[in-house]
């Protein structure tokens, strides 16, 4: 079995649905200079298979983005080899940034002052977010 060392300082993003690890990495950490380990298709009692991401010397993570990608994700914050905090992602009721409004006529596409903001309308199988500027519904598939 593949083994990866624990990290001294940083975060472990765990319980990512198998196959979505790369998506999490691309959305949140593709520009990082810190060491990153992406484990895919790891055996999991709870999920069968899961992905895990470990990042050294990073402690901030956008829980809203994790929540829309997979609300089952957990985040362990490690300091000096100790687990100091465990966070659970959840589907965000509101979002600032993170999504692009799907309405091409929306002001958020052309004006830097207008950061896209959304309100959750429905979470039945797909996430429906209403843009606070143009009120168009943007759908994010879970």
């Amino acid at each position: 079995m593949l083994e990866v060392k624990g990290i001294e300082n940083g975060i472990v993003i765990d319980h990512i649905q198998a196959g979505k690890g790369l998506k999490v990495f691309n959305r949140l950490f593709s520009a990082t200079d810190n060491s990153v380990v992406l484990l895919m298709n790891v055996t999991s009692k709870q999920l069968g298979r899961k992905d895990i991401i470990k990042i050294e010397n990073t402690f901030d993570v956008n829980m809203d983005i994790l929540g829309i990608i997979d609300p089952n994700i957990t985040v362990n914050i490690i300091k000096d080899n100790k687990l100091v905090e465990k966070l659970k992602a959840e589907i965000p009721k509101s979002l600032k940034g993170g999504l692009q409004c799907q309405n091409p006529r929306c002001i958020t596409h052309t004006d830097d002052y207008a950061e896209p903001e959304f309100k959750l309308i429905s979470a039945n199988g797909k996430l429906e977010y209403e843009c606070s500027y143009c009120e168009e519904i943007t759908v994010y598939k879970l």
Partner: protein
Amino acid sequence: MRHLIEPEDLTIDEINRLVEVGLDMYSNPKVYNKICDGKILASLFFEPSTRTKFSFDSAMMRLGGNVIGFADASTSSTSKGESLADTIKVMGAYADIIVMRHPKEGAPKLASQYSRLPIINGGDGGHQHPTQTLTDLITIKRFKQTVNGHNVAFCGDLKYGRTVHSLIRTLARFGNTKFILISPDELKLPSALKRQLTSQYGVELVEVTSMEDVIDDIDILYMTRIQKERFFNEEDYLKLKNSYKLTREKLKNAKPDMIVMHPLPRVNEIGYDVDDDKRAVYFEQAEMGVYVRMALISMMLEVGPYARS
């Protein structure tokens, strides 16, 4: 300070009062012709408009105020790349109130976040057009005496037609419980709006594709133009542009006291032979827009009938 970005920014009581004040301004214009003396309206039209721009200009002038602004973004610093927020901040020193039209949906809301003056949304893309809704309501009140209790049908572009979206939501807030929607399949009312109307207001929506099937049952027929500027390709527009045309012949089957409304401009969806029919009120509708906008300016500047005692 308050803004008018969408009709929901006004309560039903406030809308009723605006309509009443507007009707009084229509009947007794001289009473109000100095109440905005010394006030300036900044009229910022980033997209072309005839009725909305000039009716606001006319409204401010009839109240004794002055107007500055532009009718085309190419004549403003926007053409040099100035952001909307900067334009709005600068206008704060030049005027007392702003009316703006913008092709981007949500632009007036963004402007309101950076403005120290009241902002009135004069239309943002296919999104909201609250003062057209006020214009429609004052017209309904003038010709049908009440806003409630009529069988209202909307015909034409119900997908992109912002006037329809704003009016139908507001009529639902007033307690109207049934609407007839006449449109081709491609231009039906957006499903999110339909869902809101049925779940939030318990409204019944009857969707048909033929005007002839329902015309004898209508009290208020609200016609709309198929808007070329809302289409991304010419082919789709050409396919749909002639979907509906109201003619004198079709009006023969309509109720004698039905009214025909249209936010204008029209292209060919209402034949010119309909203009002389007493049921055609769309030019009076455009006229009433001036008076309800006079009432709105008074309200937002807290002058005349809205002055704080």
